[in-house]
């Protein structure tokens, strides 16, 4: 029963809080005594109880980190600049890098990419 939903604390009354789960769903009988949630925090709610205050700064950081670190680059030879066509198609980056090192490129390799006209 790992089922839990994130929601926003709208109002706190003693141990209980009114939580907005989005989409017009609110519940006012959520027990938040396990956490130190205050108004406007986002909490995880499991079976009527808040179990954690969500760290939104962390969430933003994780997303930003992975947006950066999933930009495609050729890992085997550490090419970091984008490919000349401005497209992040990995085969093209690989091939253009191979070419810049003076290696021969076979016709089959180019055909495999599926570029129109070849």
């Amino acid at each position, binding site marked *: *029963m*790992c*089922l*839990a939903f*994130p929601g926003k604390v709208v109002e706190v009354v003693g141990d209980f809080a009114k939580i907005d789960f*989005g989409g017009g769903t609110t519940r006012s*009988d959520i*027990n938040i*005594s*396990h*956490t130190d949630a205050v108004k406007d925090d*986002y909490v*995880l709610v*499991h*079976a*009527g*109880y808040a*179990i*954690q205050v*969500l*760290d*939104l700064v*962390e*969430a*933003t*950081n*994780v*997303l930003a980190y*992975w*947006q950066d670190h*999933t*930009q*495609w680059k050729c*890992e085997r030879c550490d090419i970091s600049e984008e490919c000349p066509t401005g497209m992040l198609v*990995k085969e093209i980056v690989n091939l253009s890098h191979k070419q810049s090192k003076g290696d021969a490129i076979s016709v089959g390799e180019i055909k495999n990419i599926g570029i129109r006209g070849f």
Partner: protein
Amino acid sequence: MVLEGFRDPELAKKISEKIQLYVTDIGEDLIFMHVCGSHEWTMSHYGIRSLLPQNIEVRAGPGCPVCITPGTDIDNAVKLAMEGKVILTYGDMSRSKGSNGLSLLDTRPNGTDIRIVYSIHDAVMRARKEPGREFVFFAVGFDTTAPLTAYEILNNLPNNMTFIVSYRYMPPLVGAILKSSVLGIDGVINAGHSATITGMKPYFPYFLETRKPQVFCGFEPIDILLGILLLLQQIKEKKPKLQNEYTRSVTWEGNTDAQNKLDKVFELVDGYVRGVAVIPGCGFAFKDKYMHLDAYKKYSLRRDEHNDQFIHGARCGEVILGLCDPPECPLYMKECTPHNPKGPTMISLEGSCRIWAEHRLIESIKCRSSFPSSKGSLSSAYSDTAS
């Protein structure tokens, strides 16, 4: 809202490309396991398995609380219901069948009083309203749910309420999965909400013992893709870690407030996980001070775990353990459907069969030719850990 970023299709595409790249570098077949019904739902709902390369397989482990609740506990709850006690429980639990094929709801025509509750607080309010009747709360779940019960027990419980405690502790279960030589798992995606309470700490001994990659993972599609990516990264760099992807919720210590309440009321004992085995330190039992709340003590019930069985012909046990996919069960979508469920994995909303059926998955996604055969009893999967 920030959390919507965790469903970004562009980022998902980029991550799956990176996964592809890592897998090419590793060049081996890999088997991962997640241990949460909600993870299985996200994987099926967003089609994450179709984004993964052929040689990665992510299996659903024992992560559904209804599926792993022992049949003997259900039998005892049925017995108490027939004796005229009011049984309070969660919705799915009331439909799950015990070892003699009878669920709590099946007894309703006999005049039993079964009440479905949303939370333990709900249950306490109902017991307080009718002081003349005896109430039994059928408490199922993992360490996410147990502290909530502990909280209500510490906050003046009504006298007419007892508990059938069937809570299970996740870290030893994950440890058993990692140690099992039959499952042969290369890495585990840990349940984020369970670890929100326990923290990463209790998983550390099992990590030291096995040195297998573990990632604590959230429940959005990006979370799961990142979890798989981090596992692959650890394998590629040959540096297994206990890594946290769900940083917005999981911490090293966990929710200490909830843990303190848990420690006051419960202690860890050996626990039987249905379809798996008896795992040391996996179950919760009341401490001596609260022993009077135990329905097993009060009504002198007996645990009869070795007689536990699923419906004849079904492969529920293997599905729970991740040894086979739901479509490999001969009853799947034939005799056993979401409208007329037979086994616990089809009954529970978090069970693998139910999730696969609701997403119209009727074929096994991967061929398991390289997979070791699952001959013999299921308990043999953990024979190496039990000793």
